[in-house]
């Protein structure tokens, strides 16, 4: 290919690329549908309705309008245990601004007799929900514990953190983002 042929070829590629940008534009104006429930940033948080350790029932979709941190955990999981104090501390910093923490215990794979002593020992004040059927774990495609889902006021997942323990600074940056 000589210089002129190459220049024409490059110009053709650039014009073709520009045309492709306009042809493939997303006319809907929203590429990730926030209406589809999936455990991934940009999607609607999968709904669940679970009983708390004190017997109340909490439905995630009823909390629309508030920022929610859903933390999936178990008592046998060391990083889950390690991050609870930080979650409690940051929850107390932000609860007045509209933060809700739902700590969903993976009861189907945990020893239920160990949950209450752990909560007492850690002095946790946020609701502890019990996933006895693994339905919430399935809906959130749980692969490892702990897994945390930061849900904004519209009910969409803003950020997912797999593994732990989460540092307080990480919790604060993610919570600030969902409180906006």
């Amino acid at each position, binding site marked *: 290919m000589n210089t002129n042929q190459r220049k024409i070829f490059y110009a053709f590629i650039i014009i073709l690329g520009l045309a492709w940008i306009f042809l493939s534009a997303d006319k809907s104006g929203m*590429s990730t549908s926030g209406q589809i429930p999936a455990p991934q940033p940009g999607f609607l948080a999968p709904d669940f309705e679970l009983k708390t350790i004190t017997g109340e029932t909490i439905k995630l979709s009823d909390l629309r309008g508030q920022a929610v941190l859903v933390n999936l955990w178990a008592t046998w999981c060391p990083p889950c245990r390690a991050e609870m104090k930080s979650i409690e501390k940051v929850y107390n910093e932000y609860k007045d601004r509209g933060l809700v923490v739902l700590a969903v215990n993976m009861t189907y794979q945990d020893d239920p007799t160990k949950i209450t002593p752990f909560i007492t020992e850690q002095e946790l004040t946020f609701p502890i929900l019990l996933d006895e059927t693994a339905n919430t774990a399935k809906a959130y495609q749980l692969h490892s514990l702990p897994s945390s889902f930061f849900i904004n006021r519209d009910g969409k997942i803003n950020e997912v953190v797999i593994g732990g323990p989460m540092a307080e600074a990480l919790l604060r940056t993610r919570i600030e983002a969902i409180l906006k």
Partner: protein
Amino acid sequence: MIEIFRNLLAPPRHIILLIAAIWMGLALAEKRAEHHGVSKDQLNNITFYSLLGYVIGGRLLFALENLSAFTPSPLSIFSPNADLFDPTAALITALLVGLIYSQRQKLPLGGTLEALTPLFATLAIGLHLAHLAAGTAFGSPTTLPWGIELWNATRHPTQIYELIASLFIFGWLWFRKADFPSGALFLNFIALTAGARLFLEAFRGDSTLIFGGLRLAQIVAWIVLAVALFASERTQQQKN
């Protein structure tokens, strides 16, 4: 099949795949480094210092950007959480560190980039494998028969499209017969990668949209493609 691959490694599977890609890419780059006027030690050092810059820069700049979150618990800066990280700042730091190292060692810019190109091309393959494993960089919904079930919809397998493109790019660069002028191989890699992104971004379901539907990544890729082609032409002219 994809589900088996995704379950093969535990999270953070994307980081494991990226580290494997760096290791393989470096091993491949070493084979041809001296041909481009860069010794194996210099290649390893520039990679090591750049990676160090990537990790430290990404964490430090994230902390600076979120100073109010770190002030009550400053020790969080040493947390093993990979999420306390700014990837853009990390990349800029890595580039700066690499540039400073190559300047101090008086390495030729074109030759150094040429020597590092196999590493970049392998890293691109690793990145798309990481996307596939983590389910990120996902496609838009489709009714095409090769669509994959992901995030509660049948979607374009964009991770696989991008993986195939990066394998082709790597193959083309590695097995090329033509003798390019210094720096042209790297520019070819940039142009091909930008071209692939420009084309394949159209099938993504997670694009950042601007100006009523234009995809930001396509605009950036188009600019990068134009600059790479222009620079490539200049390199060719200098050779002639």
